[in-house]
């Protein structure tokens, strides 16, 4: 007579939290690094008022253009202001800019994409043609023209960037909507007599937002770069706003002799965009592994 083999007790072991975390870190090294850097930057900007070694705005000509030292980690600028303190405050501006632009672009573009994708036909064609026009502009040129028309200033730069960006999100949303529209549950809802608005908002939109969010997280870094570039050309932030691109622009005449005036904000931009991109890639991998990273 054969005995039924008994299963060892330890077969179904649930992995401990520590193991899970360590596994996650090991598998997503870059994402974790990105999060770590980003959180430090975020923390620094939130606590800026308390941790800055010097006031970012106090002018002190006797201290001007000092090289980096223990006293001034990133040296001083042409007005004698501590660059490290200014860089910390500049992080606020850049993070704000990235958030605002991406949000605005999504808020404008997603509804348009939704309508376009759901109704199709003439509305779709019309909206897509209009977005084609926006997308035909060489990059940065539309924002430059808009800011030149509206006048200098960070707010105008934000508006300009959002206006130049939303067609992209409209497209992505439209693509997603057109896929989701074919799903069974949408047909079911329609058969039950649910109106188009409800269908769009309740069923289609939530399921189509993923690619938009993914794209947004990947674009976040790029919007920071774009805003800094605009400020660098002179079409973005103005004093007293502390913005990294503006800091680099103001240092233009001294950058060869006093390299830290330009490289400090430059490094800050690089680090922030790096962290944001790493996070964005991670989000992309998690939410939409099949996402075609063709941007």
């Amino acid at each position, binding site marked *: 007579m054969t005995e039924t083999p008994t299963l060892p007790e330890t077969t179904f072991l649930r992995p401990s939290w520590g193991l899970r975390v360590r596994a996650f870190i090991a598998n997503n090294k870059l994402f974790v690094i990105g999060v770590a850097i980003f959180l430090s930057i975020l923390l620094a900007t939130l606590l800026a008022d308390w941790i800055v070694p010097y006031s970012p705005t106090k002018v002190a000509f006797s201290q001007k253009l000092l090289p980096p030292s223990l006293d001034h980690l990133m040296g001083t600028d042409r007005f004698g202001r501590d660059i490290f303190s200014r860089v910390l405050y500049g992080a606020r501006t850049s993070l704000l800019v990235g958030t605002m632009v991406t949000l605005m672009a999504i808020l404008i573009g997603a509804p348009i994409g939704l309508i376009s994708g759901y109704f199709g036909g003439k509305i779709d064609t019309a909206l897509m043609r209009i977005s084609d026009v926006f997308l035909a502009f060489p990059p940065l040129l539309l924002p430059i023209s808009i800011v030149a028309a509206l006048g200098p200033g960070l707010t105008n730069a934000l508006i300009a960037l959002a206006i130049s960006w939303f067609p992209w999100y409209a497209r992505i949303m439209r693509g997603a909507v057109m896929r989701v529209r074919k799903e069974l549950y949408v047909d079911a809802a329609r058969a039950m007599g649910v109106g188009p608005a409800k269908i769009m908002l309740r069923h289609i939109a939530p399921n189509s937002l993923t690619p938009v969010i993914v794209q947004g997280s990947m674009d976040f870094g790029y919007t920071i770069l774009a805003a800094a570039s605009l400020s660098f050309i002179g079409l973005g932030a103005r004093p007293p706003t502390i913005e990294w691109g503006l800091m680099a622009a103001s240092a233009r*005449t*001294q950058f060869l002799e006093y390299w830290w005036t330009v490289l400090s904000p430059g490094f800050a931009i690089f680090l922030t965009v790096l962290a944001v991109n790493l996070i964005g890639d991670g989000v992309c991998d998690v939410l939409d592994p099949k996402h075609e990273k063709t941007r």
Partner: protein
Amino acid sequence: MRAKQESVNMMCSRKLLRAVGLAAVIAGGVLAAEPVLSAENTLIWASRASYKDWDPAATYSEETYVLGNVYETLTLYENGEVKPRLATSWEKSDDGKTWTMQLRKGVKFHDGYEFNAEAVKKSVEWTKSEGRGASYLWSGLTSIETPSSHTIVFKFKSPIALDLVASGQYGSYIISPGAIKKGHDWMQKGQGYGTGPYKLVKVEPGVQVILEKFDDYWGGWEKGQIDRVIVKTVAEGATRILMIKSGEADIASVPSDQVKTVDAFDGVSVTQGTSWRNSMFLFNFKKYPTNNAKFREALTYLWDYSAVLNDILHGIGTAPIGPLPKSMWGHGEYKMPAYDPKKARKLLEESGIPKKDWKVSAMYIGSVGAYANSIELFQATAGEVGVQVELFPGDWGTIWDKAKKLETSANIQSMTWWPAYATPQDWLYAQWRTEKKALFNLSFYSNPKFDKALDEAIAIEGVDVKKSVEKYIEAQDILMKNHPAIFFADVDRYYAHSDKLKGMEKQFNPAYETLFVYDLRK
């Protein structure tokens, strides 16, 4: 198949090797290339200015830096005196309305035409009829007579200091009849004929201007002078600095905050001297709250004058003593405000303007470091006392357009002024005389007493220059009582140049913005 695959692999790596090899060769070849330095008799001038109007009768801007080498004026203003140039002597009638001038003999234009009274007559009449640039200077002209080949008589309907006007760097260049025949549009392309020591050879807008020596120049030539001038338009200050450092440029304008650094370069010096430029931020008399006199006065005490002159302008300017630069005849002397936040605060509170309205807008040319940096400093110092300054940098065209209309103008407006010819009226008339429609009176200042004193001064200037000084000062007294602006610098002229260049000391006649290459030796 295997062979084919392997050959593909080989090809790939071979291609890669070849590419790397080529890159190395090019790099080596390039690195072995010498920097192209300025040649013996050529002057390379790296300039920020972008030139537009090559017609000397139309130019009213930076072209004079260059055109003063191509064209000449009848008289020359130097060290407070009017000296002969194309005219050798002159006299005026007692009423100052008729001027008789003797012209220099043996002078030729670049295109071969003879310089004589007929040519001068043609040039002046054409300048006046074209109505461009500073042609308004000749608006009182009624007739020109040429009693002999080298004598000319000018008649005006009101007295005019013609010796001064004719020395001016705008509106008074003598142009060859040959060029006039070809017309304004032809000249605007970067062509023209004058009597000056250099010919206009080529103009590539936004890139460079080339001048070459005019062999038959009446002043003659000696060894060591410059044969060719290349004026390169280099927008970036950092680039100009590098060009002067490497020897690629012999002379360059550099940003004022780099002067000390540049002066320290090997083989390079920065020479500085007086000019007739002064820089200021004008107050808007019709816009709240700068329409309040005490508020304006308070603002003048919030400017850190010494910091701006020392740390921002780096000694490139001196403290002004009035609305006119101290190097100009007829200037008034005033006790100017100093940085005093306490006094400013007191004045602000006395002004009656509520604290919440302590807000001003400032418009300025964003690319000019002197404006951008000094107004940023002002923003900080004013902020400490509770005055908010909002900055509006921009391009001159945009700014000027906004500034001319009250609705779009700012409370504080940047301005740098220099005269068309040696006279106080150039500043006072253009910037502060009542204008129905604003052109350069960007303060929207309108004071009938000032207008009257100024008009009287102008009328006397034509008859007796020395007597007009009193009236000019009277007008300035009235003006200064109203706190019209923050006068922050009498700007010096300065050039960064190679030490090999001799004759730089001669380049500081404030009457002329021109770089007189004829006086330079290499």
